[in-house]
């Protein structure tokens, strides 16, 4: 079973995680056309390569981003989406 590094909890087996889909920026829903929005909602690029993905560490409830190459299945890095929620920073406050 694959291992994945949770930014908060360290290296864990994949069974502790839930995949949350590709991380994609939504178009501005106020200005985009219907077809642009439909493309965003329904179309995914299946081409192998580097992807940003949502992952959720279930026992701790941590959402984070993993940068993964879907061809080699290598995860190059994982991090919390926003530094604002980085607990180590909260602690520093």
């Amino acid at each position, binding site marked *: 079973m694959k291992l994945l590094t949770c930014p908060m909890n360290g290296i864990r*087996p994949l069974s502790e995680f839930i995949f949350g889909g590709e991380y994609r920026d939504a178009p501005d829903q106020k200005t985009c056309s219907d077809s642009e929005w439909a493309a965003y909602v329904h179309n995914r690029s299946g081409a192998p390569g580097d992807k940003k993905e949502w992952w959720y560490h279930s*026992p701790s409830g941590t959402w984070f981003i993993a940068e993964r190459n879907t061809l080699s299945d290598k995860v190059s890095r994982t991090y919390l989406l926003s530094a604002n929620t980085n*607990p180590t920073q909260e602690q520093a406050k």
Partner: protein
Amino acid sequence: MQALTPNKAIKLDAKISPAAPAQSGANVKWAVMNEMQIATAFASAEVEQARQKVLGVTDVSCFPRYGFKGPQAAQWAADHELAIPSSPNSWTLSNQKSLVLRLGGSEFVLEDQIGGIACEKLSIISARVAGVYKVPRADAAFILTGSAVLNLFTELCSLDLRSSALLANDVIMTQVAGISAIVIRQTHNGEPIYRIWCDGTYGAYMWETLIEIAVELGGGAVGLASYQQ
């Protein structure tokens, strides 16, 4: 909202440990501790002491707990004279008798050990503070003792929980027997012991599973009375 006043006509009954549905048996002795009915003995003291040496499982769901989280949680704890672990996912003892777990960076669980009163002190604070959110706890909580504890974990948990891999004050949020749980290693009377917490609604399942394996490994259920000695 209107002020809360209890209806004086009705008496508060004891709560029951969430693991209790799995703890039936003629030999089980029960007592009320911290308003919760808990198993104090499952067998004779001699049998339980023998189990403790190999693999004893004790239900301590009745220990008082207090949870809080939020960006100001650490500050709030300091304001209330609570010692907190300095780094995420670690634990410390506050005033020797209250265990403080830091879950991630900004969530805390306080658990009074026998004789601890920190939860009671916090629970009477009703003022809500910005950036601090109370997390009601309804954990099932267990203590595992004995020489075969790690054998049990090799079947229930895929992480390496041996002392070489687990730091003394680490808090591990992982899966045990397929469900989310918190695991730490402590020292009690000079012996290493492991603690497990899980959602109370999984308590009976967790107890069943722990006991099934403990018995196979030569241990078994140990009542709170034996653990206290």
